[in-house]
């Protein structure tokens, strides 16, 4: 670390001692755009709420108290555990986890297919994967609602085919939210896996087959472990934003499908807002995400040994 260039590979005298100076822009960027906002959020979560939004500079644990403890309507009953918000968090984790699994199940074969095409054909497929994402996420999510509503194309098709008699009520269900999440984040799964599979040396698959491994054993014992970094990156890139998503649950879900993102959004929007409570919920979400990433990092370094 001491004075070494990033990566530590350069032994050139010219760069010796320049490490800290060269890192300065990165440090400034991280400080201004990451550390400072998180610090502001952390501080706000311990302040007292002002009724029309904003805060009063008085220290209190009220926001966290409200999140975890139920003290009755007038706040004078003995505290018991408040399940509302924990329930919302649990549902969010569950939905984000399911979206991650679905994205992996669809994304891995897709990435594999693209990475095994000719070089020219690959760029066409990659381009096609990204095309829908040139349209704003809001518009895509609203369009999804139109597709699955009672009089939308999906229900009309199923009715016409005689599969169903009455339209399926899909909007405002967990299914709709899941569909929105899955659709929004699928390319974040495909692209890192594609990058990993593209680097994969297919002579390893031949070596495995040569050493009596069936296709299934080759996938399980050679391909998956070798492309694992891409899979893990894809899962993180899908899970983390799904956990905090608010567009899909807001537009496709209803009161019963409330997720963390919508909960936090509501606290900072309009007169009903409660900034310290929103900040506290954000801090709790951040803690969960950090926890997941730490567990993964720990597992990764153990695996290396």
């Amino acid at each position, binding site marked *: 670390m001491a004075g070494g260039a990033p990566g530590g590979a350069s032994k050139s005298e010219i760069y010796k001692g320049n490490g800290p100076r060269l890192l300065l822009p990165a440090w400034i960027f991280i400080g201004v755009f990451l550390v400072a906002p998180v610090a502001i959020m952390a501080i706000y979560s311990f302040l007292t709420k002002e009724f029309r939004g904003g805060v009063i500079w008085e220290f209190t644990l009220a926001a966290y108290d409200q999140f975890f403890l139920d003290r009755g309507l007038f706040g004078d009953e003995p505290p018991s555990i408040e399940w509302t918000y924990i329930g919302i968090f649990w549902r969010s984790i569950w939905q984000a986890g399911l979206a991650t699994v679905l994205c992996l199940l669809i994304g891995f074969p897709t990435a594999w297919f693209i990475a095994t095409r000719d070089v020219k054909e690959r760029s066409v497929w990659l381009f096609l994967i990204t095309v829908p994402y040139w349209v704003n996420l809001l518009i895509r999510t609203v369009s999804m609602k139109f597709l699955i509503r009672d009089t939308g194309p999906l229900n009309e098709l199923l009715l016409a085919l005689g599969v169903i008699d009455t339209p399926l009520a899909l909007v405002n269900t967990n299914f709709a939210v899941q569909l929105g999440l899955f659709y929004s984040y699928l390319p974040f799964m495909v692209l890192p896996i594609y990058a990993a599979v593209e680097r994969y040396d297919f002579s390893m698959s031949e*070596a495995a087959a040569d050493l009596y*491994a069936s296709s299934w054993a080759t996938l399980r014992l050679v391909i998956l472990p070798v492309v694992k970094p891409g899979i893990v990156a894809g899962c993180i890139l899908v899970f983390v934003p799904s956990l905090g998503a608010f567009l899909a649950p807001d537009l496709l879900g209803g009161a019963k499908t409330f997720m963390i993102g919508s909960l936090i959004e509501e606290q900072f929007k309009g007169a009903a807002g409660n900034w310290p409570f929103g900040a506290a919920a954000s801090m709790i979400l951040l803690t969960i995400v950090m926890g997941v990433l730490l567990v993964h990092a720990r597992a990764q370094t153990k695996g290396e040994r």
Partner: protein
Amino acid sequence: MTSTAAVATANAVEIDNVVKRYGFVTALHGVSMQIGDGEFFTLLGPSGCGKTTLLRCIAGFEDVSEGAIRLHGQDIAPLPPHKREVNTVFQQYALFPHMTVLQNVSFGLLRLGWSVSDAEARAKQVLELVQLGQFAERRPGQLSGGQQQRVALARALAPRPKVLLLDEPLSALDLKLRQAVRSELKAIQRETGIAFVFVTHDQEEALTMSDRIAVMSAGHVQQIGTPREIYEAPSNRFVADFIGETNLLDVTANRVSDGIAEILLPGGARLSCPAALGARAGQGHLSLRPERLGIAAPGQGQLQATVEDHVYLGTDTQLHTRLGSGEALVVRLQNGAAAIPERGARLGLEIEAGAARLLSD
């Protein structure tokens, strides 16, 4: 001429008129050969000659378009690669980076249903054979190129295949290491008694290691024989040119019978020399090995030439000469014995026994 070939009791591999087409391109045009049990057999040829394609057909990574490949008499066409009792050492090794050396070497055994303890014991034994016993717990990324090459060899040898296929396994090593590994590989082959099918484009590698060599070019087998047969009695122009250095002269053969040709050399001298199978009287190509040409005083010897240049090669010196009739001819002289003629000197050339051979086209 004695051959060093191991006594082949049975054929490990029979390749019977194999044709391989990729769309409109034909990579193998009806190739046939028999590889004996315990034989070190080399497929030699320039890149694109089909040698690697043939190896991949034996391993099962490619299907043959026509013909059959038999392993100990059994047609293996219907078997996928993982059901063929052959193992491969890949050119770039294709080691599994996420496994230790020991796990790499025991991989095949575990797939065959061996218990973990048996597989590890066998893997350790093979690692000892390739002198990597102390590296069992390392990962491939922590090993040098030469060590990785030996892991690849150990991994392929561990399941005791009937035939070991080696796809240019030495090409990624530097020269010194390559020479050391050659003799090691040969020793391991003798010790294990497994038939080796070795693919290379390096004729020196082929000559030093093989019991027999199949020289291939453009999807055809040009000649199959022991290294000595291939070098001393090349059957055609391609083999003579590809194996070692040679001079090819356009000559007229007056008569060819019983494998002996009567040749009229440029300059008018006559020569009687062996003829390859298929060589006919008339216009033909004569191969003259540069190291079997001697120098003589001008006017003596069968050919008259002028020295144009020298190339010093350490043990030898190459003389680039030109005949009176205009053809260039290379002569290779050992350094130290006699004075090397100066540039511009005129000299006679003696064609020693075994230097000349009339080729078929």
